[in-house]
């Protein structure tokens, strides 16, 4: 998957302003960025849903502008909303998509059975999707994207609104198709999701690439993990600051002090005993990984906008 200088205007405002992307076949690229950064626009252009105003893009070896029908035979799109049809049964949903991907009736039925098996939905095959749990619907929706074993899969926030167990299941399925050779472009609001799945992360801001690299590279850019100490009174703050070192950041309102650490657990032990030695009883001591907000803040220079 390749994009060069993509440009897209909405009402004279540039949603994409020279966006570049290169994703090697069989890898996962995580697309991160605050709302309005152009993630969805980029995905929609690559999935042939939007026309581009400038630049060029290739998906699975075909030009998205000139060879859209060929691209559509190679890609699958899985959006944040569920496209599962509630009134149809799980199997009927998959057979319908199979038929729309131009399998014969018998092929579509066979493929539906295979997918239900793979996604652990065989027992619920004959039930209407209305009766499915959130996680089952998500799995059914994903299954319907795999009708034709896509060479490129667009996953737009696949686990937004799912509980941790269901997120884990979705991640497992995504890893499985990647192992089978599918290239995935994943947009997400969760850093840990990109961490789990992506070989390469691209951070977008105002329609272009703000940073890219492996998850580890990006994290080290942020200074890695932090230790955070919360105390009961403001009087104790200077002591804690002393223990944590000269780079510690103090949040006086929250009685909170934090500092970057390299040696996670060892630092926790060191700080705990140092505080005890100086008679400070901390309310809470914790190791914290950088949050997505901090990634945005560090790379784009402004906070992620709150989801509308």
């Amino acid at each position, binding site marked *: 998957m390749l994009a060069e200088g993509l440009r897209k205007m909405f009402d004279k405002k540039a949603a994409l302003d020279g966006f570049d992307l290169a994703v090697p076949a069989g890898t996962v690229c995580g697309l991160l960025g605050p709302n309005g950064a152009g993630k969805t626009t980029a995905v929609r252009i690559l999935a*042939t849903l939007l026309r581009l105003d400038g630049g060029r893009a290739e998906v699975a070896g075909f030009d998205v502008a000139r060879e859209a029908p060929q691209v*559509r035979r190679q890609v699958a*799109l899985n*959006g944040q*909303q*569920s496209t599962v049809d509630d009134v149809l049964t799980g199997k009927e949903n998959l057979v319908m998509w199979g038929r*729309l*991907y*131009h399998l014969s009736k018998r092929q579509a039925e066979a493929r539906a059975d295979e997918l239900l098996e793979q996604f652990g939905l065989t027992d619920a095959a004959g039930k209407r999707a209305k009766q499915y749990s959130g996680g089952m619907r998500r799995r059914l929706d994903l299954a319907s994207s795999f009708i034709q074993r896509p060479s490129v899969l667009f996953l737009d926030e696949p686990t937004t609104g799912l509980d941790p167990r269901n997120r884990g299941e979705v991640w497992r399925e995504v890893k499985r198709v990647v192992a089978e050779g599918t290239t995935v472009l994943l947009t997400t609001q969760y850093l840990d999701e990109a961490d789990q799945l992506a070989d390469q992360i691209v951070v977008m801001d105002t329609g272009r690439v703000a940073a890219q690299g492996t998850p580890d590279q990006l994290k080290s850019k942020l200074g890695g993990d932090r230790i955070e100490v919360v105390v009961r009174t403001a009087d104790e703050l200077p002591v804690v600051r002393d223990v944590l070192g000269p780079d510690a950041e103090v949040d006086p309102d929250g009685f909170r002090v934090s500092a970057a650490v390299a040696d996670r657990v060892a630092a926790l032990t060191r700080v705990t005993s140092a505080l005890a030695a100086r008679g400070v009883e901390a309310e809470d001591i914790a190791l914290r990984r950088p949050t997505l907000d901090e990634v945005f803040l560090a790379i784009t220079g402004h906070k992620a906008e709150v989801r509308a």
Partner: protein
Amino acid sequence: MNAIKYAAVDSWIVAKRDLIHWLREPVRVFANLAYPIISVLIFGLVFGSAMNVFGGGDYIEFLLPGMFGQTIAFGVGTTMMMVSMDADRGVTDRFRASPMSQTGVVAGRSIADLVNSSLELLVLALCGLVMGWAFHDGLLNALVAFALFLWLRFALVWIGIYLGLLVKPEAAQASWMFLFPLTMFANTFVSPELMPGWLRVVSEWNPLSSTVAAARELFGNPGVGGDSWAAQHSLLLAVLWPAVFVAIFWPLSVLKYRDLSR
């Protein structure tokens, strides 16, 4: 050749999805039918005795073709609703990003809507027959009249698709507020001859009036005629109006569909 084959197959698959919905959730079909049936009862039996048919005649006989027309016109709201819901839920995007025939998506919609409207007309006609409505000029003419209603419905499918792609489901739901007066400023319930001057002109030229007037003529029901050009050429206009709608809204819908840019 393959393109035509898949356009047909894909249309049918999309249409089948809707038809299964109606079969499994008949409540919605009944809800759609309840309004015209209740209207026939209210207008026919409650207001009926106070209603005058211009030129004389039985009011139920006058009313039924008007009810057919209103039911058909309300169909544009149904199409809008279904189209905007699919677009809102991302189903339309999935269709568009798949190799399925792009004609199939919209053609499937019109097949499903036409089947649905045919069913509504059938139930309403049976209900009318029970209440004293009849067609007097033979079955063939009656079938031509129903064909004219479905021709109008077909044209409204394209208006519905275009508007449905333009608005959110909430707005599509509110379309009834506009549809209701549009179906009343017509010859559906009252002869335009009995309306004040300006409204009379609007009602006479309302495309719905042409189809209803043509149907009255073909059914041999009262209330036919009037001195306006539109009233005198209702049959011609009943064919022409929908053709004009199709000519305008078919390409508009196709363009809008291709360039859906949320």
